[in-house]
């Protein structure tokens, strides 16, 4: 906290990041009333669910994407010889307090999204509105860990990870109906991004899925998140085990 000006700047820009995501959606909707068959109000709900999940994941495990730097520089060795879990240490090497405000903004947007859509409250929906961001965050966290783990095998892989972390965030910010063909099948159902914001939003809105998935699809995000987390844990362990450090 000794770099106060720097802290202020980073806090402002972190808020700006989330604001920009929402603003982009609003600008896109200035050109047309319906995108993929959804209105701006409904889209706001989706982008806010996606933001909440992503920001929460970024806040907790986002640091992991610096793994490739540690692998390259050999800093990871110092982490591995300590009697603590490698993952826990990497995450706590820099606790990003500045990302906190971002989370607040995402939650405010979610509240606005819920308000303008006149959601009819039931117990399952109340659980869903808390569960979707949390399990979405677990899911994004798994994607973060998964893409960072690539660095164990391929040091310069940083950008590929971005395609799924930040790309995943962008994907979930819009209704899945926007995307076409195999690309939608792969991202929404193959990788599971469709269950982060789109399906829960449909369930909250009480809308039937234009793509034909049943109503309970909005509630499977915990399952998708746990599968993803399990897969990420396996890849992480495999990566740590085969890590050979740098140098001779």
């Amino acid at each position, binding site marked *: 906290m000794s770099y106060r000006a720097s802290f202020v700047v980073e806090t402002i820009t972190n808020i700006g*990041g989330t604001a920009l995501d929402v603003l982009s959606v609003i600008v896109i909707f200035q050109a047309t009333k319906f995108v993929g068959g959804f209105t701006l109000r409904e889209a706001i709900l989706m982008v806010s669910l996606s933001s909440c999940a992503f920001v929460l994941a970024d806040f907790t495990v986002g640091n992991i994407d610096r793994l490739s730097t540690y692998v390259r520089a050999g800093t990871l060795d110092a982490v591995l010889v300590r009697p603590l879990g490698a993952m826990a240490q990497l995450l706590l090497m820099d606790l990003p307090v500045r990302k906190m405000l971002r989370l607040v903004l995402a939650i405010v947007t979610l509240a606005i999204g819920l308000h303008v859509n006149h959601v009819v409250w039931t117990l399952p929906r109340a659980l869903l509105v808390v569960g979707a961001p949390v399990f979405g965050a677990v899911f994004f966290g798994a994607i973060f860990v998964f893409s960072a783990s690539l660095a164990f095998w391929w040091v310069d892989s940083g950008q590929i990870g971005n395609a799924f972390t930040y790309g995943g965030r962008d994907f979930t910010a819009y209704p899945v109906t926007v995307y076409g063909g195999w690309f939608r099948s792969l991202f929404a159902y193959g990788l599971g991004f469709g269950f982060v914001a789109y399906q829960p939003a449909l369930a909250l809105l009480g809308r039937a899925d234009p793509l034909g998935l049943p109503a309970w699809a909005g509630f499977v995000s915990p399952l998708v998140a746990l599968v993803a987390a399990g897969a990420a844990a396996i890849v992480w362990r495999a990566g740590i085990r085969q890590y050979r450090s740098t140098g001779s």
Partner: protein
Amino acid sequence: MNVLGARVPTISPDQPIRVATTTFGALARSGFRRYATYRQATIAGAFTNTVFGFLRCYVLLAVAAGASGGRPAGYGTEQLATFVWVGQGLLTVVALWGWTDLSDRIRSGDVVAELLRPVHPVISYLAPDLGRAGHAAVFRFIPPVVVGLIFFDLYLPQRWQTVPLFAVSVVLAVVCSFSCRFLVNATAYWLHDARGPLIFWTLGSGVLAGLYFPLRFLPDWLAVTLWVATPMPGLLQTPLDVLIERDPPALQIGLVALQAVWAAILLTGCRTVQRRAERKLVVQGG
């Protein structure tokens, strides 16, 4: 200088132009070679650009499908698809993000080496950056555009003049982008750490350059203000608009001329900032 028999090409007013161009060329080639060594990163980056190409392309096509007349802000569907895919290719050519060479060297004090060289610091960074852009134009621009061509209907220019004009526009975009990055990095002369300004830049440049959505989606007054009062549209939006022939030929040329004006202003700005910085620079260390 030839007393020692050393053949050191320099850029200075009293040397022939040929020597200046040789130095510039050598520096540019070094920039090209530097990026040519990062082969894995090139592949990884091109893959990521391609994924984002799919994401943005589908979103804009959905907008076109919903807009009245199917032409949001005057763009046809093929033009929008081209806008996205060529934009993903150009993103690394103009290199909006990730350049911290100058601020890193200022913080570490290594920048003093630049001041000892017989080449102006702005030139000694500009030339390698053009070399880097040349590398990106081959290895980072082509892959996403080819993928776009395979999976989507793209717009091909109808007028032959568009192609050379696009090339000029891209070069100007690289110069503008370089100057902006130089200025952002140069804040480290005063702040010691340019992290804050760099984050601001990373955040703002994408949206203001037209990466996330075409700037013409914005209200007219805002779009025109951005174009005239800031160099930002010149970094990405202008070359793309030129390529997809959004405007009649006269306006196309006008937009590129505006880019040229901004390039001149920004380069002059870089020189001025560098001169002032040299006056106050204190390199630490024993």
